[in-house]
C-alpha cells in the first residue's frame, strides 16, 4: 500500500472532523451537566431532530436556511422540554433524570417515525461546499473542511463568551459553585434556561451539519449518544476543557484505531474509557466544585 | 500512642497545618483548642487519613501509618467521630452501632448470616449503647431520635470499633449545657486506657476533662501543656479567648 505523509494527513483531518462534530454535541451536554448537574440522555435525540428539521427545511429553502433555522427549531423544542420536564426534574437525583430522559429517547424516536416515516431523509450539501479543496498535497472534501472550521468557530465563540463576557463569568461561577453563584445575585434559573437552550441549539446544529454527511434515520440519535457520553465522561463532566480533550481523543482513537487495529476498533474506545475511569474516576479534567 | 511529626499541609495559598508535632501517651486525654479556621478538623482528617499531609508523618502505637488508607488505620485502633453527624439515617440506633461492631469483629462481609445477630456484635452494641446512654432508643431510627441523642450516638458509632485511640470532633457542638455535662460524665466513664483526642469549643469542659491541652492558631501549635498552665497563659487568652468571646 502506498501509505505516505498525505495518507496520514488525510486521516488526521478525518479524526479532526469527527472530533469537531462530537465537540458540537458534547459541549452542550457537558455545560448543562456542569451547571445543572443534569444528565440529558435525550441529547442525542435532539441531534436527530436537528437533522430531521434540517432535511425538512432544506426542501423549502435550501441548505443555508436549514443550517440557520434547524438549531433554532431544536432550541424551541428545548424550551418546551425545559419548561415541561427539566425544570421540575432539577432537584431529583441522577437516576430519575437518566430515566426521564431515557423515556424521552423512546418518545422522540417514535415521534420522528410518525412525522417522517422510516425511510431515510435527504439533505444535500450546498453546491459551494460540494467539491474538494487541495492543500498540503492532498485533496479533502470541502464539506468536511467546513465542519472542521465550523467546530473551531464555535469553539472560539464559546471561549470568548465564557472567558470575556458577563454571562460567561456567571456560567463559570455556576459550574464552580452554584450556591455561591446564587449568593452573588445571579438569576440561576434564567441562566440554566439560557444554557439549556443553547446546548439544545448546538445539538441541533450538529445534527444539521451531520445530515449531508450521513443518513438521516430515526436511529441516528441513539447511535451518536454513546460516543457523546464517552467524550464527556473521558473529559470530565461539566468541563469545557474536558469536552475538547474528550472529542479529540475520541476522534483520534476511532480514526487511527480503524486504520491500525481494525479488529479492535470498536472495543478500543470502551477500553480507553474504562482505563480513564480507573485512573481518574471523575475524568481527565473534572470540573471544580 | 498517637504521634505526629512535623505535619504540614497547604490548600493552595492557605497554610492549614504548619509543622505540627504532638504526642499522646497511652490513656492520655488531650483537648485541642483554637479559634474557627485554626486547622483543628484538618489536623483530624490527616490523623485518620482522609487527607494526606504534604510533609511529615503520623504514628500510631509507634508504627508509621502516614501511607495507610483510612480503613486500615481504623482497623489498627484509630477511630473518630465527626463535628457534623454522619449517621445512617434510615437505620435504627442498634443497626448504626451494629455496622461498626460488625466491621470490628470481621462480620461485615459475611454473606449468609446476619452480622447483627452475632453474639459478639450484640455484646458490643449493648455495651456501647450503655456507655453513650442510648440504650432506650436502640430500636428507634436515627430520624426519630433527638439531636442530642444523635450526638451521643455519633460518638457511640466511633466507639463501637473498639478503638485504642478515639478522636472526637466537637462532641458537644450544638447541644445545650445540660447535655454537655452529660458528655462530660460520658468522657470520664470511658476506660482509662483509651487515648482520647478531643476538639472542643467549650472551655469549661475542656479544662475539666483534659490531662493536656494543645492550642492551634493558623495551623500552628501555639501552646502545648497542662490545663493549669493554659488557664494562666496570656497568649492563649489573647488568641483564643478573644476570638471565642467574639464568636
Amino acid at each position, binding site marked *: 500500500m*502506498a501509505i505516505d505523509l498525505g495518507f496520514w494527513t488525510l486521516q488526521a483531518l478525518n479524526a479532526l472532523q469527527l472530533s469537531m462534530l462530537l465537540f458540537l454535541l458534547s459541549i452542550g451536554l457537558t455545560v448543562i451537566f456542569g451547571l445543572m448537574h443534569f444528565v440529558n440522555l435525550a441529547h442525542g435525540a435532539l441531534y436527530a431532530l436537528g437533522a430531521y428539521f434540517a432535511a425538512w427545511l432544506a426542501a423549502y429553502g435550501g441548505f443555508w436556511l436549514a443550517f440557520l433555522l434547524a438549531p433554532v427549531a431544536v432550541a424551541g423544542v428545548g424550551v418546551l422540554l425545559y419548561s415541561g420536564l427539566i425544570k421540575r426534574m432539577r432537584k431529583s437525583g441522577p437516576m430519575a433524570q437518566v430515566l426521564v430522559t431515557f423515556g424521552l429517547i423512546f418518545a422522540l424516536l417514535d415521534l420522528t417515525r410518525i412525522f417522517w416515516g422510516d425511510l431515510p431523509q435527504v439533505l444535500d450539501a450546498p453546491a459551494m461546499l460540494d467539491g474538494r479543496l487541495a492543500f498540503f498535497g492532498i485533496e479533502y472534501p470541502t464539506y468536511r473542511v467546513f465542519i472542521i472550521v465550523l467546530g473551531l468557530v464555535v469553539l472560539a465563540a464559546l471561549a470568548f463568551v465564557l472567558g470575556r463576557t458577563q454571562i460567561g463569568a456567571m456560567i463559570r461561577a455556576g459550574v464552580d459553585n452554584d450556591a455561591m453563584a446564587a449568593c452573588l445575585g445571579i438569576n440561576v434559573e434564567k441562566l440554566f434556561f439560557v444554557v439549556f437552550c443553547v446546548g439544545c441549539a448546538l445539538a441541533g446544529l450538529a445534527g444539521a451539519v451531520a445530515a449531508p454527511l450521513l*443518513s438521516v434515520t430515526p436511529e441516528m440519535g441513539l447511535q451518536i449518544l454513546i460516543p457523546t457520553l464517552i467524550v464527556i465522561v473521558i473529559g470530565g463532566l461539566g468541563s469545557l476543557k474536558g469536552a475538547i480533550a474528550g472529542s479529540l481523543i475520541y476522534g483520534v482513537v476511532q480514526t487511527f484505531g480503524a486504520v491500525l487495529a481494525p479488529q479492535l476498533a470498536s472495543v478500543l474506545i470502551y477500553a480507553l474509557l474504562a482505563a480513564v475511569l480507573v485512573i481518574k474516576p471523575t475524568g481527565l479534567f473534572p470540573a471544580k466544585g | 500512642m498517637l504521634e505526629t511529626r512535623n505535619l504540614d499541609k497547604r490548600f493552595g495559598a492557605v497554610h492549614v497545618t504548619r509543622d505540627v508535632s504532638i504526642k499522646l501517651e497511652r490513656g492520655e486525654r488531650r483537648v485541642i483548642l483554637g479559634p474557627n479556621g485554626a486547622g483543628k478538623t484538618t489536623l483530624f482528617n490527616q490523623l485518620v487519613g482522609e487527607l494526606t499531609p504534604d510533609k511529615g508523618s503520623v504514628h500510631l502505637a509507634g508504627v508509621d501509618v502516614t501511607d495507610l488508607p483510612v480503613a486500615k488505620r481504623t482497623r489498627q485502633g484509630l477511630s473518630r467521630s465527626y463535628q457534623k453527624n454522619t449517621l445512617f439515617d434510615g437505620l435504627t440506633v442498634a443497626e448504626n452501632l451494629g455496622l461498626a461492631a460488625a466491621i470490628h469483629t470481621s462480620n461485615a462481609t459475611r454473606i449468609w448470616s446476619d452480622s447483627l445477630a452475632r453474639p459478639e456484635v450484640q455484646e458490643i452494641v449493648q455495651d456501647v449503647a450503655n456507655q453513650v446512654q442510648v440504650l432506650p432508643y436502640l430500636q428507634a431510627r436515627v430520624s426519630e431520635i433527638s439531636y442530642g441523642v444523635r450526638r451521643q450516638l455519633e460518638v457511640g458509632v466511633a466507639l463501637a470499633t473498639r478503638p485504642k485511640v478515639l478522636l472526637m470532633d466537637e462532641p458537644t457542638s450544638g447541644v445545650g449545657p445540660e447535655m454537655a455535662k452529660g458528655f462530660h460524665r460520658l468522657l470520664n466513664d470511658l476506660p482509662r486506657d483509651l487515648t482520647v483526642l478531643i476538639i472542643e469549643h467549650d472551655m469549661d469542659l475542656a479544662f475539666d476533662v483534659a490531662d493536656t491541652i494543645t492550642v492551634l492558631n493558623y495551623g500552628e501549635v501555639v501552646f502545648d501543656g497542662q490545663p493549669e498552665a493554659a488557664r494562666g497563659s496570656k497568649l492563649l487568652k489573647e488568641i483564643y479567648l478573644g476570638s471565642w468571646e467574639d464568636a
Partner: protein
Amino acid sequence: MKRTILAALGLATGIAMPAAAADDIKVGLLLPFSGVYAALGNEIEAGFTLGLDHFGAETEATFSVVSQDTEVKPPVALGKAKKLILQDKVDVMAGIVSSGVLGAVRDMVHGAGVPLIVANAGNDAATGMDCSPFITRMSFSNGQVNRPMGTWMQAQGINKVYTLAPDYAAGRQMIDGFVETFTAAGGEIVGQEFTPFQKTQDFGPYLAQAKASGADAVYVFYAGGEAISFVKQYDSFGLKADLPLYGAGFLTSPLYVNAEGPAAEGVITALHYVPTIDSPANAEFVAAFVAKTGRVPSEFAVHGYDAARALVEASKTGANDRATLAAALRGVSFDGPRGQMSIDPATNNVVQPIYVYETVAGDTGLTQRVLAQLPAEADPVNGCAMPAISN
C-alpha cells in the same frame, strides 16, 4: 432430534393442526415494523399485499393474513413466530428480514413443520448447512448475488480490487462470494476491511486506506443507512473518478438511492432485481406498485410480491395445509418481474438471473440502467442434506 426440538418448543403433545375450512389459508407475516429495518418490513408487506391482490384470484383458496412485528430482535421474533404457530395456528409464514431472526426461528419452523417463505434474509446457511424442507427462500442468498459479479468484473478488465463491508455474517458472506469468483477468474484482492456493523458513521478512515491501496476498483456491500453514508462519503472524497465503485446492488437500492443523490451516479452494482428490467411482467408490477404506494418498487418489494405469488402458485396445486403447502412451495416456478425463476429442490433456494446495473440520472431522479443480465445459477449445495417432509 426432531422430537426433542418439537418437545422443547412445547409442541410435543397434540400438535394442533389447523382446523380451518379447507380452502382458507392462514398466513403469518413476520416482519420488522419498528427498529432499523422498519422500512424494509413495510416495503415487503406492501409487495406481499399487492401480490395477493394481483394473483389471489388465480386460485380457489382464500387467504387471511396476520402480521407480527419482529423488531430486529431474534428473541422477540421467535416469540412472535411461536404465537403465530400456536395461537393463530397459521398454515404458512412469510417474511423475515434479518439473518439473525431467520437463525432464531429456523429450528422452531423446522420442528413444527410450518412452511416458511423467506422474503429477505440472505444467510447462506439457511439454504445450506441449516436447510429445511419447510423453509423456501424467494429472495436471494448472499453468495448468489455476488458470485456472478466477480467473474463479470474480471472480464471487464478490472484486476485489482479493494473490498469493504460491515463486520457481520452477511457482510462477510457477500464479500466471500465475490472474492471466490473474482480470484478464480484471475483477479487480485489488494486489500480488505470489515467495518464495525451499525457503529460506523464515518467511513473516511477506510476510504483513505482504499485510496492508498493501489486498487483499480472498490467492491463493497452496504445496505440501508450505512449505504447512504458510504456512497455520499465515497463521492465527497472524489474517489469515484479514479477508483470506480462496484458492489452488491443493495448499495444503490431504489429504496435508498434518492437519499444518496448524485453521489450514486455511476456506481455499478449487481442484484437480482432492478425496477427497470425490460419485461411485461416487470412493467405490470412496477405500474401497480407505483399506483399503490407512489414510489418505484425496490428488491424488497419484489421479495414480498413474489413470496405472495409463490404461495398462490402452491395453492393452485390444491395444497392447503402445512405439509402440502411445504411440498408444493418447493416445486414453484414462474416468470415474474425478476425473469424466469424457480426453486432448487436441493436447497430450497431461489434460482434467478442476476442483473448488473449502473445508477444513472433519469428524467425524474436516479434510475437504473441494466448493463448485463447474468444467467441464473443454482447455489452450491453447501452441506445441505434435505430431509424428506414427514409428519
